[in-house]
């Protein structure tokens, strides 16, 4: 009986070594994944909300001014401000994939509605949309392309900002040292 037990454990010993290596590697990989994901998420969150915050600050400041000093002609601008602020209020501050798997919020569509509402507001106010906002239109186009790419993986649940699509394959293993 003793002998057969030894044999049994010999058969599994390779698997045992593999498994213990795998577990150590997995734990280490998680640390790298968290660090790298966090770095990307910070950048992306800042980029998106800096732009949205800009529209929000712009619209609410104009609105407050017009409510105090505006004339009857400014009614349209106040309405445009309100619409813009409503759209921004719908925009998620966290990545919806992490909380609501059934969320069918179309982020890129909402973002482009916000951008065009901002331009409508600017033209009703008679001011020019700022350079930085129009520059980010290019980024918006790129995003839309990336989004339609990501659409193929729909079964895994909608991810509004799928982190993996942000990663250049060449970057993924860059500082993965072990």
């Amino acid at each position, binding site marked *: 009986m003793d002998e057969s037990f030894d044999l049994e454990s010999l058969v599994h010993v390779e698997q045992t070594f593999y498994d213990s290596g795998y577990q150590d590697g997995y734990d280490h990989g998680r640390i790298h994944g968290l660090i790298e994901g966090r770095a990307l998420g910070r950048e992306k969150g800042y980029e*998106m909300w800096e732009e949205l915050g800009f*529209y929000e600050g712009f619209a609410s400041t104009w609105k407050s001014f017009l409510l105090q000093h505006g004339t009857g002609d400014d009614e349209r601008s106040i309405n445009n401000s309100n619409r813009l602020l409503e759209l921004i209020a719908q925009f998620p501050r966290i990545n919806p994939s992490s909380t609501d798997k059934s969320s069918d919020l179309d982020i890129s569509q909402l973002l482009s509605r916000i951008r065009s509402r901002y331009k409508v507001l600017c033209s009703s106010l008679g001011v020019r949309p*700022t350079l930085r906002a129009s520059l980010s239109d290019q980024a918006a186009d790129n995003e839309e392309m990336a989004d339609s790419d990501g659409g193929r993986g729909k079964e895994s649940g909608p991810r509004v900002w799928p982190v993996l699509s942000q990663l250049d394959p060449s970057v993924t293993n860059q500082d993965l040292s072990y």
Partner: protein
Amino acid sequence: MDDSPWDDDPNYSGVQETEWSKISNEFTNAGYREGITAGKESALQEGFDKGFAEIGAPLGHEVGGARGMAAALVGILSTRVNNPSNTSNEREVARSLLDQLNSVRFSDIAPRDLQAEEHAREHNIEIEEKRKMEELEDMMGGLGRSGGRAERPTREQVVGLAKQVEELAREVINK
């Protein structure tokens, strides 16, 4: 089983040990390689969501809000002049605040990622050396411009700018 060929070999136990640790290393390393990739992929999205919600979005919202307010003030003071003497001065102030906020980058005000730094230390990555290289690069970059290191706004300065914008907004709106 009693007549195993190596039972008679007095040197065998040594050979066996080397062989043993070779097998052990081989399989452990193979497991490690697969594990680290799987572990990393399992955590990327979680890290991303955290960085997005806890740092990126609130910080961007704050800076963008101040910048939008400054842009609105420049517009108001340029197109809705009702008190010319005061307005041109206020417009210059608003313009300068807007310019400064326009130049803010996330890297200027991002908080340090202490876990990342700690983990890098565990890897014995030469942080010191990396930092020195960056300093050198900054110096080289600076040479082309005014000779000194490029001045970047700090987190405190950006908070100060946002406060100034709010004060100016209050004056302009409640005038």
